[in-house]
């Protein structure tokens, strides 16, 4: 059984969350329903429980991340769990200890779950394959492969505005090649029944053969975003770019930046989304990022309840 197959127990409950692949629409919708219970608008008292009291969760982040790590930490603490953060920069891993040895050392400390972010695609599955049975693994992003909780919170955000996925056109725009968010978004949206998913990127940032995931590929942004209901903008992941992908001098913004003018090509009530962090003036202009169609801050707000829902499902007794 592969780690993806092992994401769910025999009774269908979540055991790990490594990738959207292997989930199904019913489970995603169950996550949404649970997240609704944990959702609290900004400024209001946060929902909390003692569901995970006595559980220990370790954030194992090999790539720097303030937002995602904080969101997981908050989510875990709101459920009553103890949280430790593994700072890889000062850990033995930076001294040459292998990933596996790091894991085995931490495993010996009786951790219930590792939340892992790693620069290599497949790292979360590798960890899940080698971890002691009974220890859960949650993928917080592995290389360019997957970022399932981001896809879940983005889909949750869409659902709260446009609940009928079967009628939607969604465009994902930008650095598709290096984006784990894009791959997870595609799978989640397809699973939820979105019939028209479009990827918009220059050829140099479009993965080979990605059309086989059931998406349309556009190199012309104006064509790609015409009449869409949702635009998900992605930043250029220069930290993952080895080699030459784009000219300099603002040409990317000229061809693919989301401006107010371009936004008018989409439907008038189209949602503007971005998994963050945004680079103003590179993939999106401020007027759009801060404009009335933007739900970027809602996405941030949804990050904690979605993660609470996932943690509750994996580690909580009596959860679906």
């Amino acid at each position, binding site marked *: 059984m*592969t*780690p*993806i197959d092992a994401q769910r127990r025999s009774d269908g409950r979540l055991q790990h969350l490594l990738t959207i692949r292997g989930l199904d629409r019913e489970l995603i919708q169950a996550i949404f329903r649970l997240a609704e219970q944990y959702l609290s608008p900004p400024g209001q008292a946060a929902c909390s429980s003692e569901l995970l009291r006595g559980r220990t969760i370790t954030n194992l982040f090999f790539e720097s991340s303030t937002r995602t790590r904080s969101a997981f930490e908050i989510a875990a603490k709101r459920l009553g769990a103890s949280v430790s953060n593994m700072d890889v920069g000062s850990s033995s891993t930076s001294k040459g200890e*292998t*990933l*596996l040895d790091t894991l085995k050392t931490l495993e010996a400390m009786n951790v219930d779950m590792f939340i892992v972010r*790693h620069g*290599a*695609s*497949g*790292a979360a*599955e*590798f960890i899940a394959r080698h971890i002691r049975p009974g220890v859960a693994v949650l993928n917080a992003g*592995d*290389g*360019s*492969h*997957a970022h399932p909780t981001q896809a879940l919170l983005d889909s949750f955000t869409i659902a709260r505005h446009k609940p009928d996925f079967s009628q939607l056109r969604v465009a994902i725009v930008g650095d598709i090649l290096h984006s*784990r968010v894009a*791959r997870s978004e595609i799978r989640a949206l397809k699973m939820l029944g979105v019939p028209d998913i479009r990827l918009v990127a220059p050829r140099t940032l479009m*993965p*080979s*053969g*990605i*059309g*086989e*995931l059931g998406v349309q590929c556009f190199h012309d942004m104006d064509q790609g975003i015409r009449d869409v209901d949702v635009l998900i903008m992605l930043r250029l992941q220069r930290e993952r770019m*080895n*080699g030459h992908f784009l000219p300099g001098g603002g040409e990317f913004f000229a061809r693919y930046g989301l401006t107010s003018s371009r936004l008018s090509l989409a439907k008038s009530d189209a949602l503007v989304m971005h998994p963050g962090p945004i680079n103003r003036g590179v993939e999106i202009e401020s007027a759009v990022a801060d404009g009335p169609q933007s739900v970027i801050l809602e996405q941030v707000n949804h990050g904690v309840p979605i993660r609470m829902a996932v943690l509750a499902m994996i580690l909580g007794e009596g959860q679906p």
Partner: protein
Amino acid sequence: MSVQLSGVHWVDPASGHDDRCDLLATTQGLQQVERIDPKIACVDARSLTLIPGFVDLGCSLPQADLPHGDSIAVELRAARQNGFDLVCGAPDAQPLIDSAAAIEWIERRAAGADGARLRLLGALTQGLNGTALSNMAALKASGCVGLAQGRAALPAADTLRQCLRYAADLALRVHLRPQWPSLSAGCAHDGAQASALGLAGVPVVAETAAVAMILCLVRDSGCAVHFERLSCAASTTMLAAAKQEGLPVSADVSIWNLLFDDAAIAGYDSQFHLNPPLRSGNDRQALCAAVRNGVIDAISADHRPLGADAKLGPFAETQAGASSLDAYLPLLLQLMQRESLSWLDIARLSHGAAASLLAEVPQRWSLIDPAMVWTADTEHCLSQGQNNPLRSQSLRGRVAGDLSGGELRLGRHWQHLLGV
């Protein structure tokens, strides 16, 4: 010394023989006999097939400086016991095969191995650094049968041109992995599978651009070039045209690329992290066609024994390569069945073409039990490599022994089975 094999399925490419017969083996060679001579030792070989020992044009030698310094000997014995008569050691060994001293060091360790014969490919450039020609004449004088870059990067075009011109003067064949260095940064075939997995892909053009460039240099220099481990359909088309033109070129393909495609890495199985990568199903089919019609001359095991740690990590962070000696025969038999190849085809692809390129005559014949089922676990695998992609699987086909100069050596299992 002599021995008889009764009822053996004898595959002899030299005569075209591919049938059961009674065979007499002496120091003079093999000959079919009409009846068994009761005065000469005889083995009931009705369940066995006798084929020329495999000849492999590219085998990575294990690190020669390991604490158990007999790794080379162990791998050569494993090669022999898996049916290999001769293997060519790639130059990116430890020590690098770029000096007479290194050659002598390696050959001394190989000499007492009682394993497969070893021939060495010398470094094409000094230190395999791609910038300076190696002392090719000295390497030839020390016994190198050709020159290569191993897994090191192809030299730039101007240097490679000079290398080929110089090698041509010495009538040395140059073995090259056609991988354009700046296009080859990746760990999987650049296609839908790698894209879905988020793995950096190596596009087909990384190989075809190199093939095209090398063919131009072959025309320019007249140097004989052997393309190592072709992996894509487009390369086979270019190679066919080059052969049609009469260029002195040849090629091999890894057994893994003939039987697997990039679907094998769907679960990030690092055992299938190979170089060249497993490509698309279409590429695999084209490679099989090229093997059938002779455009590709030989099938290599592309053996690269690695320790267990080499594959323990996220896919892109593991080392590429497979321990292939133990899997080679079972995979050849699978290929034979899947692609409707004859035993004579198998003999050509696993022995004949490669031996011809090296101007070698067979010294050892492999006695094969094609029906034997065995498990590729640590106990039964002979190579020290821990990176056999078929580990723990049940495989069909095993080498029962070998025949050389009238002397038959059988594995213990077959000694019991045949009452020898």
